[in-house]
């Protein structure tokens, strides 16, 4: 399991490092710079130290948005990861149905995010939308513009519809990369379908599932365009997630200093959780046979 020790491997990493650092480092430093200043206009700025950070940390509306965000991302992971794995396991392995199911699964991913929200506005409208019409004909009242619960249900439906395909595609590619020899060995041993999943497929999918969990966590934690278009953060503040609140400060009030401090705290929260997820997935089941 030990890797080769060789610092020359840096030459293979260098192009990636340069291309990412070009876009990453200067903007990040600029935002750090904003976060410790009070900016009135071009050339008019005052150093304020950690004032914006203290203000942000004590903002109760931000705390509410943070809890909403954690609930949202938690639900996203709990639904999308198991559902995505289950779908990937049932996908066909050969024949024309591979093309059909792969292309169909990928469709929601390809729609620009602002358009996703717009589609779901129409789709859930009771007068001209299929979903709204169908649910009303069942005798249920459903209105995501008035009821916070309905707004959350609509958002979760949209989110699961939109992003489960990402988990499906990753898990499917991971499953297809398992050498046939493993399955042959399992069938000789007379292993049950569950045993094959638990001891062959799941461990072999560790790599793709790590990236699936991290991607879904990061992107759902940063979600902006879809809820902004669909609910605008309402009704009330019930779907005001962190990024919607951030844009309110950054663009709505044009408070660049506090918004920058907010961004950095936001970034650190995502970093912390991603690191914890990463460590947890890396270490789970480490003691088992490969």
């Amino acid at each position, binding site marked *: 399991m030990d890797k080769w020790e060789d610092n020359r491997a840096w030459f293979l990493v260098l192009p990636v490092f340069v291309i990412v650092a070009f876009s990453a480092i200067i903007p990040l430093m600029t935002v750090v710079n904003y976060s410790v200043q009070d900016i009135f206009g071009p050339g008019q700025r005052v150093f304020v130290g950690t004032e914006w950070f203290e203000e942000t940390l004590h903002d109760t509306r931000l705390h509410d948005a943070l809890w909403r965000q954690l609930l949202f991302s938690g639900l996203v992971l709990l639904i999308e990861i198991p559902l995505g794995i289950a779908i990937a396991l049932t996908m066909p392995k050969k024949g024309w149905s591979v093309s059909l199911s792969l292309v169909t699964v990928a469709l929601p991913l390809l729609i620009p995010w602002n358009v996703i929200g717009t589609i779901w506005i*129409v789709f859930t409208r009771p007068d001209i939308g299929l979903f709204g019409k169908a649910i009303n004909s069942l005798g249920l009242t459903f209105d995501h513009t008035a009821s916070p619960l309905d707004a959350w249900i609509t958002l979760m439906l949209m989110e699961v519809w939109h992003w489960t395909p990402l988990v499906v595609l990753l898990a499917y590619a991971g499953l297809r990369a398992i050498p046939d020899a493993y399955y042959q060995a399992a069938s000789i041993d007379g292993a049950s379908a569950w045993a094959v999943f638990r001891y062959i497929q799941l461990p072999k999918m560790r790599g793709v599932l790590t990236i699936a969990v991290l991607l879904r966590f990061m992107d759902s934690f940063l979600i*902006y365009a879809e809820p902004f278009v669909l609910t605008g953060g309402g009704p009330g503040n019930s779907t005001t997630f962190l990024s919607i609140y951030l844009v309110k400060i950054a663009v709505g009030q044009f408070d660049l200093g506090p918004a920058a401090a907010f961004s950095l705290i936001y970034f650190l929260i995502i970093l912390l959780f991603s690191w914890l997820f990463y460590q947890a997935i890396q270490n789970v089941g480490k003691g088992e046979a490969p």
Partner: protein
Amino acid sequence: MSSGKGKFEKKRIGLIVYLFLLFLPIYWMLNMSLRTNADILGSFSLYPTDPTFGNYIKIFTDPAWYSGYINSIIYVTLNTIISLVTALPAAYAFSRFHFLGDKHVFFWLLTNRMAPAAVFLLPFFQLYSTFGLIDTHIAVALSHCLFNVPLAVWILEGFMSGIPREIDETAFIDGYTFPRFFITIFIPLIRAGIGVTAFFCFMFSWVELLLARTLTTTEAKPIAATMTRTVSATGLDWGLLAAAGILTIVPGALVIYFVRNHLAKGFALGRV
């Protein structure tokens, strides 16, 4: 044997139900794209009673519309190529070697996906204007590398780590040089990973709006930004927006169609 058959059918039914539900919102968009705006707002209909291609014709004849597609395709293709070409060797390094700071650099790469975009747009604009890159395709392609290159490295590293290192060692003993080994032996082994990576790079670059809109004005303006034009003084033109939405799906659907065989291709060690 009969119980196994029954289970097989049940699995398929679950998949078919999922794909059907998945397709419903897309079908609704397709339905709307074939109707006029007045028709959409006027009545509820499960299918277009009086189908018209007017919305599509408008998009294909108005340069303001179709140039958005061309711009998006150019920078997305550029971005996918840059991401794959740079990420392949880097992912190999991370999956095979221990080197100074390897774990830190690996995780640092991913942290570039974690920043909320809103406040970063202004510094991005300043950085790219300094280099005179504003309103060029390469600017958008480069800026999208910020989130696509790390993604590509992470996905590819996962697939490469699944390949036993005995393959590399055997090839080097057989006298293969590194580039020849990498291209003729290693890349075919991870084609499922490359397929899924190419699709994700294409997809994330295709749907990204904030950076693409910030860095462009007219010459390289993306389709997603053009689509906000459907909101006019008279309200939203749902039919036109739906047609544009259907057309935004097409290029990516073609990409996944072309990589499908690589995705579904099993990985067989015996055939090296």
